C-alpha cells in the first residue's frame, strides 16, 4: 500500500514556501524551467526534436506514410499522435501497451495540434477518397521529471515544424513516392502551458516533486495564426482536485503570457 506520510510533509513545505512566492528549486511560481530544443536529431525521420524542460527529457519523431483516408473525410490526410512512457524514463513506468496517462497525454497533445489547425490535412490528400498521407507523430518520454504535457507538446510541435514531407506522384491509380521533399503545410502554432494547483496557488511548469503533491493540474494551449491572432485551442484538467472559477480564469491569463515566452524557443519552420 502506498505510503502517504512523505508526500504530506513535502506538500506542507511546498505550500509554506509558496506563501512567499518561492519554490523548492528556486523558481518563482510563474517561472518555467530552462527550455532546450534540438531538431533534426533523427535523420531517418521526416522530422524530429528533443526537448529538455529542466531535467524532463522528451523526443518526438514524425514519419509520413501512405494510407487510406477515414471514410467520413475522404479528401483529408491523417495525423496520428502517440505517446510512449518508455520504462527507462522513470522507475514508475512499466513495459506494455500505453496506460491511461500515456493515452491522455497523447490525446491532449493531439488535440492541441489538431484544433489549432496547425496541419492543413486537406493538403495531405494524394488521390481523393483513396490514398492520403498519414503523419505519424510519435512522442517518447525519456526522462520524467515533471510536466510531461508541455514537454511532449513542444517536442511534437517542433518535430512537425521542422518536418519535410515526401512528394508523391500520381498516374491513374498508381502512386509513386519521389526522392523530392516539400514543406509540411502548416498554419497556426499551438503552445501548451500547464499549471499545478497546490493549496490555493498555481505553479507554472510543475516539477515532479510538485506533481506528486498537487491537487490537480490545468493545461491550456494557445494557438497563434499568421496574423498573430491568439486563441485558446485546447484545455484539460487532470487530477482529482478542484478549481474555483476564479482560479480557472487566472490560469488562462497566466497561460497566455507564458505561451508567448515559450514561442521564442520554437524552431523556425522548414528544414
Amino acid at each position, binding site marked *: *500500500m*502506498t*505510503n*502517504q506520510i512523505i508526500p504530506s510533509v513535502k506538500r506542507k513545505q511546498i505550500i509554506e514556501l509558496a506563501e512567499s512566492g518561492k519554490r523548492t528549486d528556486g523558481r518563482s511560481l510563474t517561472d518555467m524551467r530552462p527550455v532546450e530544443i534540438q531538431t533534426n536529431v533523427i535523420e531517418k525521420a521526416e522530422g524530429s526534436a528533443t526537448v529538455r524542460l529542466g531535467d524532463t527529457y522528451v523526443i518526438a519523431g514524425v514519419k509520413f506514410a501512405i494510407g487510406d483516408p477515414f471514410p*467520413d473525410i475522404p479528401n483529408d490526410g491523417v495525423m496520428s499522435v502517440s505517446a510512449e512512457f518508455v520504462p527507462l524514463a522513470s522507475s514508475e513506468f512499466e513495459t506494455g501497451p500505453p496506460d*491511461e*496517462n500515456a*493515452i*491522455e497525454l*497523447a*490525446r491532449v497533445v493531439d*488535440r492541441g495540434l*489538431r*484544433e*489549432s*489547425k496547425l496541419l492543413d490535412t486537406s493538403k495531405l490528400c494524394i488521390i481523393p477518397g483513396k490514398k492520403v498521407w498519414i503523419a505519424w507523430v510519435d512522442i517518447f518520454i525519456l526522462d520524467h521529471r515533471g510536466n510531461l504535457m508541455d514537454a511532449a507538446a513542444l517536442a511534437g510541435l517542433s518535430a512537425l515544424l521542422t518536418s519535410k514531407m515526401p512528394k508523391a506522384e500520381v498516374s491513374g491509380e498508381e502512386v509513386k513516392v519521389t526522392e523530392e521533399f516539400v514543406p509540411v503545410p502548416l498554419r497556426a502554432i499551438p503552445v501548451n502551458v500547464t499549471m499545478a494547483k497546490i493549496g490555493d496557488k498555481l505553479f507554472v511548469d510543475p516539477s515532479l516533486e510538485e506533481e506528486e503533491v498537487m491537487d*490537480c493540474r*490545468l493545461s491550456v494551449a494557445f*494557438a497563434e495564426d499568421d496574423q498573430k491572432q*491568439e*486563441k*485558446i*485551442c*485546447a*484545455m*484539460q*484538467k*487532470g*487530477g*482529482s*482536485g*478542484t*478549481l*474555483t*472559477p476564479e482560479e*480557472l*480564469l487566472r490560469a*488562462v491569463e497566466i497561460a*497566455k503570457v507564458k505561451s508567448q515566452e515559450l514561442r521564442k524557443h520554437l524552431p523556425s519552420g522548414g528544414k
Partner: protein
Amino acid sequence: MEKKKLITDDGIRYDGRKLDELRPIKFQIGTLKNADGSAYVEWGRTKILVGVFGPRESHPKHLALADRCYIRARYHMAPFSVEERKSPAPSRREIELSKVMREALEPAIFAEFFPRTTIDIFAEVLQADGSTRCAAISAASLALTDAGVPMRDLVSSMAVAKVEGKLVLDVIDQEDKQGDSDMPMAIMPSKNVITLIQMDGLLTHEEFIQSVELAKKGCMEVYAKQKEALEEHFKKTMDREEV
C-alpha cells in the same frame, strides 16, 4: 457527412432548441438489482446506464490505499450506440474518458472514510448523441448516492459548443462534429468548484469566459433535475418501506 446549416437566423438549432436550451433530461435511480447503486439517464437521445459497486475489498490487493478508498471508473460504449458499429474493445478515447470521469467524481467522494477499499463506477453508453461524458458523470453521481457512498455534493455536468459563431448549450452529435469548439465542464454546484474542464476548438479569451458562464448555467439546470430524481427516488423507497 454533409454539412447543413445548424442554426437558423432566428437562433433556432438543428433540433428546434434555443441556443441556451437543454434537451429533455430524465434521470432514474436504482434501476439495477445487483449493483450497489445505479442510475439511468436519457439526455435527449443519449442513453446511459451507470452501476456502482463498493466500497468493497480491493482486488488485486496491492491496489489498496492506506488512507483512502481506491476509485476506479470505466466509460464504455456499446457497439450499437453509434452510427457505425464500434468494436467492444475499449478505444483510446474511452480510456481517456474513463480517467476524466473518475477525476470529475473523486473530489465529491469522502474517499478517506473507506481506507483499503475500492469503489467501482461503470458507465455504459447505450446510445450516444453528444454530451455523453456530461451525462455519464451526472448519472454516476446519482448512482454513487444510491450506493450510499457519502458525498460532499452532487456533480453536475454540461457542455458548451461554438457553432456557426454562436455559443450553444448541451451539445448534440451534429453540433459537436460541425462545431468550432467543444467544452465539457462539471461542477459541485453547492461548492461552486469545477471538477472537470476540457476544451478543444478555437475560442477567443472573451468567448471562453462566456462559455464558462453558460456551462455553469447548464450545470445548475442539471443539478435541479438530479435533485428532483433523488427526491422522487427517496419518496418511492420510503413508500415501499412503509408498506
